[in-house]
C-alpha cells in the first residue's frame, strides 16, 4: 500500500470532538459475549462515531478486576464510565462515592442510589412474553423449549417471560403447548458444544422452537437447528438480546424472532446526554413502551407465523404498554 501523508493527523477528526471521555468496563463475559457487554460496547462506539468523543474500553478477565478496572477509568480521566452487570455494582458504587465529580452508568443493576450513577435496567420479560406467545402460536409440535447459560436473574427473566407468554397463549386459545427446559442451564456462557447437545435433546423431545439465553452458547443451538433442518426437520430458534437475524451469523433463516434488549440505543443516548452536560441519575428502564426492549421482526419466518398471531401480538403489545396486562417475573427489576 501507499504510505499515508505524514501530516495526516488532526484533519479527519471532527472539529466538534469535545474533550469528553466516555469509558466502559465489561464484566468477565468480555466484549464478544454477543450479549449485554457487546451491545453496551456498540452503543458507546456509536456515540463515539456520532460525537467524536474519546473512549476507553476496559475488559475484565474476572471478578477480581472489577474494582481495579473501574478505578482505572477514573484515573484515566473518564467523564462517564458505563459499567456492565450487577457484579460491578459494588465497585461502581465505591468509585462513584469516592469520585463525586465523575459520572457512572451501570447496566442491569438498580441497587445504587447516588447522584452520579445512572442505573440502566430492562424489563425484558415484556418482550420475552411476546416471544413466548409467538412461539406457542407457531409451533407445529406443540412443544417449545428454552434454556439459560446460568441461573441468574438477567437470564431467567427471559425464560420466565417466555413461559408466561406461552401460558397466556394456552389460556387464550385453550391449547396445551408445552415448554421444556424452563429450569435448564448449561452453566456456561462459553461451552457452545453443550448448547448444541442440549438443543439436540430438546429436538429429540419434540421441541421445534428453542430459545437459548446463554450468549455465545446460543450459537451451539443455531448449529443444532441448522443441522436439524438439513436433516429434514422443521426447527426454529428465538434469539435474545439483539436481532439474531443480523448478528447470529449462522442459521438466521431459522430465527423466528428475537427478544431484543436494545442496550446500544440507551447507552448511546446516555453518553450523548452526558457529553452535552445533561447527565441525570434517573434510572433508565427499558420497556416495550420506550422501545428499550422489543420483539424483532420475523424476517424470513414472516410466512410461518399465522396472521392471527401477528395481530394478537400487536394487541398484546399495546395492552402491556398501557398496563392492561402485567408481565411479572420474579427476576424483573424491582423498582
Amino acid at each position, binding site marked *: 500500500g501507499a504510505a499515508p501523508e505524514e501530516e495526516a493527523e488532526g484533519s479527519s477528526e471532527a472539529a466538534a470532538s469535545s474533550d469528553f471521555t466516555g469509558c466502559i468496563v465489561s464484566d468477565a463475559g468480555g466484549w464478544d459475549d454477543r450479549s449485554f457487554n457487546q451491545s453496551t460496547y456498540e452503543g458507546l462506539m456509536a456515540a463515539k462515531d456520532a460525537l467524536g468523543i474519546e473512549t476507553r474500553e476496559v475488559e475484565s478477565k474476572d471478578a*477480581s478486576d472489577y474494582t481495579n478496572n473501574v478505578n482505572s477509568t477514573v484515573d484515566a480521566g473518564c467523564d462517564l464510565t458505563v459499567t456492565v452487570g450487577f457484579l460491578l455494582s459494588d465497585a461502581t458504587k465505591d468509585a462513584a462515592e469516592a469520585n463525586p465529580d465523575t459520572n457512572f452508568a451501570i447496566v442491569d443493576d438498580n441497587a445504587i442510589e447516588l447522584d452520579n450513577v445512572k442505573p440502566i435496567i430492562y424489563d425484558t420479560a415484556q418482550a420475552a412474553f411476546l416471544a413466548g406467545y409467538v412461539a406457542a402460536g407457531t409451533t407445529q409440535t406443540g412443544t417449545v423449549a428454552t434454556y439459560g447459560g446460568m441461573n441468574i436473574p438477567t437470564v431467567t427473566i427471559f425464560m420466565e417471560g417466555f413461559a408466561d407468554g406461552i401460558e397466556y397463549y394456552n389460556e387464550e386459545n385453550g391449547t396445551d403447548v408445552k415448554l421444556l427446559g424452563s429450569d435448564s442451564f448449561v452453566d456456561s456462557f462459553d461451552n457452545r458444544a453443550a448448547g448444541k447437545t442440549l438443543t439436540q435433546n430438546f429436538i429429540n423431545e419434540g421441541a421445534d422452537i428453542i430459545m437459548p439465553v446463554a450468549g455465545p452458547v446460543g450459537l451451539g443451538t443455531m448449529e443444532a437447528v441448522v443441522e436439524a433442518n438439513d436433516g429434514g426437520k422443521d426447527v426454529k430458534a428465538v434469539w435474545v438480546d439483539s436481532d439474531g437475524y443480523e448478528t447470529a451469523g449462522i442459521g438466521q433463516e431459522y430465527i423466528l424472532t428475537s427478544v431484543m434488549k436494545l442496550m446500544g440505543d440507551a447507552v448511546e443516548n446516555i453518553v450523548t446526554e452526558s457529553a452535552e452536560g445533561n447527565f441525570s441519575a434517573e434510572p433508565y428502564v427499558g420497556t416495550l413502551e420506550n422501545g428499550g426492549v422489543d420483539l424483532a421482526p420475523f424476517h424470513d419466518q414472516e410466512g410461518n407465523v399465522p396472521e392471527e398471531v401477528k395481530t394478537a401480538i400487536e394487541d398484546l403489545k399495546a395492552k402491556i404498554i398501557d398496563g392492561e396486562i402485567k408481565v411479572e417475573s420474579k427476576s424483573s427489576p424491582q423498582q
Partner: protein
Amino acid sequence: MKPAPDAAPGVLERIVTGSGLVSVLAVLMALVVGGVLIALTDEDTTAAAGYLFNRPGDFFAAAWDAAAGAYYSLFQGSIVNVEAESFTRAIYPLTQTLTTATPLICAGLGVALAFRAGLFNIGAQGQIIIGAALAGWVGFTWQLPMALHLLLVIVAGLLGGAIWGGIAGLLKARTGAHEVIVTIMLNYVAIQLVAYLLTTPGFQREGSNNPISPQLNESAMFPKLLGDSFRLHWGFVLAVAATVFVWWLLNRSTVGFELRAVGANPDAARNAGISTTKGYVVVMLIAGALSGLAGVSQVSGTERVLTADVAASFGFDAITVALLGRSTPWGTFAAGLLFGAFRAGGVAMQTNTGTSIDIVLVVQSLIVLFIAAPPLVRSLFRIPPPGAFRTTRKSAEAAGGAA
C-alpha cells in the same frame, strides 16, 4: 580426614554464570516475545507494515511505540505512576500490586506445600471458593465485635479451605485416588455449590435475587493497611505471616520434616515410622487452609462480597506462582509479587493502550518456562554453565595433587 569443603565460588563467576542472571534474562526474553506479539497485532504497526518497503522506519517506530507504550503502562500500573499529581496516586499502583499478590501468595503457598509433600494440588481454586464462602457467610450474617468477628471469619475461611483440601488428602490416603483428578473435580463441585448457595436467601442480598451476597459487616473486614486511599489491607500482612509460617513449617518443624520426607521418598518415610497416609491428609488440610486464607483475603479484604467468581483465576495462577517459586516459601512469595504486579499493571495497560490483558498470561508463562530451563537461556546467550570455572579449577587441583 574429611574432604575440605569446596571454596565459595568467586564473585565474578557468580555474576557470569549465576542463576540470578539467567532469571533476569528469562524475564527479559519473555517480555521481548510479548512485545513482539503486541507490536505485530497493533493497528498502527500493521498499517505501517503495509508500506514497510517504502518507509521501514515507520514500521519499526510503530512497533516500538506499541510495545514500549504497553510495557510503560504495565510498569505505571504496577509499580509507580510517575505522572500522578500526588504521592498517594503515585504509589497507588504498588499497593495494588501487593493487594493482588495477597491471594496469589496464600494460594501459591498451598500449592507449594503440597508439592513438597509430593502431591499436585490443582484444587486451590475450589479451596479458595469454599474458604471464601464460609468466611463470607460468617462475615455477613453474624454480628460480633470487631476483633472477634474478623478472627472468626479467618477461622471459617481456613476451615472451609481445609475441608476442601482435606477431602482430596483423605481420598488419596484411604483409597489411593489420584489427587490431581480429585482436586480438579472438587473445583467444579465447589463452583456449583457456591453458585447454588448464592441462589438461596441465606446468601443473597435482601430484596435482590442476583447471585451476589450482602457486603460483609464492617467488623468482619480487614482494616486497611495504609488508610482509606489504598485498597491494601491487613490480609497482605497475613500473607507475609503465612509465608513465614510455611517457611518455619517446612524447615524448622517436625511436621514439615515429615511432609518433606513423605514427598521426597515415601518408602524411606514409612521405614522411619512416618505415616504417609497421615502425611497426605495433614498436608492437604494445611494446603487447603492456606488457599482458604486466600479466599478470606478476597472476601473480607479486597472484594467485600461473595460471588460465584470470588476466586477469579487465583487458584490456577497459584499453581504457576508455586512452580515459579520452585515450591519454596519465599520463592513463592516473590513469584506472587511478580504475578501480582503483572495483574495489577495489566489493567492499566489495557485501559491506557488498549492492549489485551491476555498478553500478561503469555508473558507470565514464558517466564516460568524460560526460568525452568536455564540451559536454554544459557545457550541462547552463550553463558558458561555453572561450575564451568570450578570444574577446571578442581581438575587443576587434581592434577596438582596427582603430580
